[in-house]
């Protein structure tokens, strides 16, 4: 019994802030109305965030599925070097890459662009995603595609028709991690986006606290917190199993 008392008290401590924020945001209904009209309009920021997240998830899945297949099934020169270079992304501070990326994306015409931000997110997701996908392909028996290859099927057809279906659980995990990272990240869009209409949600809502010279509307702020948090909470609760698999794989970034 003492166990359950302790656990319930801890659960209350962990859940209380979320419950309070939800309640505070709804205490006055106009919080959400004001939130909707804030700055360039909630719709703009929401669209930006959705666009970046969709591009990040799609890009990460595309690159890591092809790459995972390459690393699991083929021998090619430079293979180990490329894998190490990808894992090295984990070793380098975020800021150390983002300062030059701000300049570099300007060179290739992607300054202040949602596409640029999504590409950067794909890069940051790549170590985890490639590791997950390589392991998923390696876990498949070779016989699975061998029959098709012997029959003259190209490796790409075997990949598309047979293997991709078999690694679907790993793709859900990779996609979920990519979504949560791109939807929530604050630092990369803060540095790479510099025009109010192009901001993603976290940057826009944080700017409510820092650019207003008058009083901060705390109720509206919690409405912003809820708009950011609720999609993640729902996705996490629905896909919890797939999330935990990401932890089991041993490929993590802090």
């Amino acid at each position, binding site marked *: 019994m003492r166990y*359950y008392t302790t*656990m319930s008290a801890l*659960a209350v401590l*962990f*859940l209380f*802030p*979320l419950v309070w*924020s939800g309640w505070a945001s709804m205490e006055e209904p106009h919080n959400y109305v004001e939130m909707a009209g804030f700055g360039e309009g909630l719709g703009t920021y929401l669209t930006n965030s959705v666009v970046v997240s969709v591009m990040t998830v799609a890009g990460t899945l595309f*690159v*890591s599925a*092809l*790459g995972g*297949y*390459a690393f699991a099934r*083929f*021998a*090619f020169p430079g293979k180990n070097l*490329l894998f190490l*270079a*990808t894992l*090295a*992304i984990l070793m*380098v*501070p*975020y*800021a*150390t*890459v983002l*300062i*030059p*990326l701000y*300049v*570099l994306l300007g060179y290739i015409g992607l300054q202040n662009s949602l596409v640029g931000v999504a590409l950067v997110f794909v*890069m940051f997701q790549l170590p985890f995603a490639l590791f997950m996908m390589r392991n998923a392909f390696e876990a498949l028996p070779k016989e699975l595609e061998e029959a*098709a290859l012997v029959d*003259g099927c190209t490796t790409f057809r075997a990949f598309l028709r047979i293997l991709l279906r078999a690694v679907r659980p790993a793709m859900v995990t990779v996609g979920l991690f990519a979504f*949560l990272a791109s*939807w*929530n990240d*604050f630092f990369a869009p*803060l*540095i790479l986006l510099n025009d109010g209409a192009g901001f993603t949600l976290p940057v826009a809502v*944080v700017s409510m606290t*820092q650019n207003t010279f008058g009083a901060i509307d*705390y109720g509206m*702020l*919690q409405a*912003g*917190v809820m708009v*950011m*948090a609720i999609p*993640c*909470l729902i*996705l*996490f*609760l629905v896909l919890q199993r797939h999330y935990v698999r990401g*932890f*089991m794989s041993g490929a*993590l970034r*802090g």
Partner: protein
Amino acid sequence: MTTLTRPRGRAARGGSSSAVAPPPWWRRQGAQGWLYAAPTALIVVVLFLAPLVLVGWMSLNRWPLLGEATLNAPANYTKIADNPLFADAVWFTLKYTVIITVVLSLFALGLALLVQERRPGVGFFRTAFFLPGAVGFAAAALLFYGMLNSDFGPIDPILRTLGIIDEPVSWIGTPNMALFSTITLVLWRFAGFNMLILLTGLQAIPVAVYEAARTDGASRWVIFRRITLPLLRPTIALMLIMSVTGSLLAFDQFFIFTNGGPDNSTVSMVMVIYRDAFLRFDLGGAAALSVVLLIALVALNALQLRVLRRPE
């Protein structure tokens, strides 16, 4: 599908004679591997390796946010020593890293041990402890920003009702309170995350080992000291490395929650890099700081791996 493609496949290869001829280049292992790995290589080279080279080059130049860059090596490095904000930030970040790593690790280990065994309702508690981890860190910081506000938030009234305080508390008004509040925020957001990491390690310990110890009459404490801790060592090492790295690179919590204040008392190293680059428009100086941070971090990670992964 297999039976359908068989005749076509044979016909395409022109019977048995093709077994002698070498396959065309695109059928060769190496070439195919490279084709599939090409998107990965492109991303890694263009968006990771090229920026690493560029940040090195930028650090050797006077590189204003707008306008031409001019070589000024090694001025960006020598002026780091004259940057009092950075020196303070290094000290503050180290202090923060030590405190957060110790507190967070102990708390997460406690949680992991509490939810380790399967019993009714434990799944709910695991989810409850982890749930803050699903919320973005920026959103979590904004949530605490409102929650700890004396006029708007619920914490002051609750503590007053309980008789713990009798006047409003300025949760981010003094350097010590700002640090304390930030630690609370980080604990709330990351304890479940670290608990989950430790839990994967705990579950990898075979149940038979525990059972054997129990039949030998070992106490709970002895089991924890002699079995759980040693077998959990690699997982603890992973958690410590992630916590140290994450804390040394702390930005969001101080930028959003305390905004570096009061009086620049909570300015982290990455915040100085950000301020140099985008408030003082000195990208060269920011690049030099980034290079120093990179070297320090790689050295520290190598050292940590060496110390923590060594068997007892």
